[in-house]
């Protein structure tokens, strides 16, 4: 079976910025494919090209056998979308929003009522179907958008930061629905996120930074790349400890927050050795399994979700009306 999405050497330039820089990847039918990267890495731009909202500067993308630049209507019919910003008509009811969608996506009249009922029940909004959307909470709106995206039974469901701004409980609920979908309908799901725990749900993850894909693999394989467990250490004198680790164990530790951190295989067995052997007094020591954040740090030298995210978030909010 050919891949459901094929992207070849995709480039998108905006005036002086290259948002997507020679990106190539394939997504198999039925898989959950994740785009992980900080804000501004090019995730949304890629999605916008795949869903025909933007034309690539160069390169090619094929979705469900259709070219995204030359066969827009066929591509649009093949995909469902949940955007990171709300895209509902707030002034009509949930039911009317779905009726609009079912009609415009050519859902046959006989099936419309059933499909609408089914999707609204799945996201537990059937009881509230006649309420004007304006009265919905943020989480309810996102669930409604998910229900809407499924109405025409798309081959690929795009989720662009689907849980941005939602509380943890709602996030979990939304993920329950998404995972159920994949199980029941074998739907291909393409998602972007900058939450690493969310990215763990994906079968394969592309880590994207400054418009490039820097790694593409399963979450497990990606995490294995980090070289094992991560030990975080606080000592009476971090400088001396750093030197001693290097000299005695050939370990390259980093300054990390208020202490040191380094990666090592079988870290649980290494801790007792370290505690007895290190000549500098240890104040605290902890071990954790590697996360995708560590993978990102290792690949790019930066943390995924700190400093710059804050500044960009503010910028993004200001840019919001312009991006639509």
């Amino acid at each position: 079976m050919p891949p459901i999405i094929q992207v070849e050497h995709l480039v998108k330039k905006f005036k002086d910025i290259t948002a997507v820089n020679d990106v190539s990847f394939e997504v198999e039918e039925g898989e959950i494919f994740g785009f992980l990267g900080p804000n501004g890495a090019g995730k949304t731009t890629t999605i916008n090209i795949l869903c025909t909202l933007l034309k690539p500067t160069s390169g090619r993308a094929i979705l469900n056998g259709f070219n995204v630049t030359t066969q827009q209507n066929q591509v649009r019919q093949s995909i469902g979308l949940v955007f990171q910003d709300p895209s509902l008509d707030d002034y009509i009811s949930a039911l009317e929003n779905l009726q609009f969608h079912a009609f415009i996506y050519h859902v046959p009249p006989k099936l419309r009522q059933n499909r609408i009922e089914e999707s609204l029940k799945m996201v537990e909004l059937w009881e509230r179907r006649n309420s004007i959307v304006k009265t919905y909470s943020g989480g309810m709106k996102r669930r409604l958008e998910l229900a809407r995206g499924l109405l025409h039974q798309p081959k690929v469901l795009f989720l662009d930061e689907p849980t941005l701004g939602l509380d943890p409980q709602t996030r979990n609920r939304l993920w329950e629905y998404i995972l159920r979908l994949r199980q029941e309908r074998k739907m291909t799901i393409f998602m972007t996120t900058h939450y690493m725990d969310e990215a763990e749900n994906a079968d394969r993850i592309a880590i994207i930074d400054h418009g490039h894909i820097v790694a593409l693999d399963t979450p497990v394989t990606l995490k294995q790349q980090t070289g094992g467990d991560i030990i975080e250490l606080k000592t009476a004198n971090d400088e001396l400890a750093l030197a001693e680790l290097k000299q005695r164990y050939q370990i390259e530790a980093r300054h990390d927050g208020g202490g040191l951190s380094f990666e090592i295989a079988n870290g649980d067995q290494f801790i007792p050795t370290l505690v007895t052997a290190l000549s500098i007094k240890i104040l605290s020591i902890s071990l954790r399994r590697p996360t995708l954040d560590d993978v990102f740090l290792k690949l790019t030298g930066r943390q995924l979700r700190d400093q710059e995210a804050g500044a960009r978030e503010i910028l993004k909010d200001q840019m919001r009306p312009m991006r639509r």
Partner: protein
Amino acid sequence: MAELRGIYIIWYRELLRLYRNKTRIFGAIAFPLLFLLVFGGGLSRTIGSLQPGVNYAKFMFPGVIGQAVLMTAFMSGVSIVWDREFGFLKEVLVAPVSRSAVVLGKILGGASIAMFQGLLVLAFYPVVGLNLNAIQIFKLLPLMLLVACALGSLGILIASRMKSMESFQIVMQTTIFPMIFLSGAFFPVGNLPSWLNALVKINPVTYAIAPIRQLLLSRVEIASASSGSTITLSLYGHPMSIGEEAAIVFGFGIVMTGLSIWAFSLPE
């Protein structure tokens, strides 16, 4: 067929939104009615008859209807800006429907609402002492639809490149208000200083207001049968017929519709 479905559903949503927000109806007729009461009532006595049987209130009444239709149609462009600002436009843009169907649906939706507003204002005709028959009203409907579509497409053209409500508001105030004031909606254009005459004659809205007036005052006109009418619009000394004026508005509308489809199809 798919195009027609697209146009239909976009049109339907415009009407549904009006139905859900009925206060808009009153908002849109309050302004024309205010004009009619204040200026019509206030100036009729002072100005006296413009020609036998036509006082100022009767004269401006068709202008007020025209203004209500044009403003509403033009304002329908706001719905694109609104949809963009609140995100719904994205849902439309990724749907399997062409950009031209979206534009035509929006224009027709706005025009339908504008016609409805025009009819609401028309219902006040006894207040100014006009006599209308069914044929006149029946003829007025397609005329209102035409001018509403033409000016609505201008609104859509402007809105298709606008990113915020504020900027649309500003463009509207600097476009549609001068156009309405320079159209002869509120004063006879037969005897103007030449610079003003030139502005009035190149203004497309002039050709939208004139046929409405000619139609609604046609029976008065026959009764008075005067030459040098304040009702009929003349271009280069040639008195224009309703058909000729409608043709100009139609041509303007076609060009604007084409341009708005083009502008709306440009990448965001």
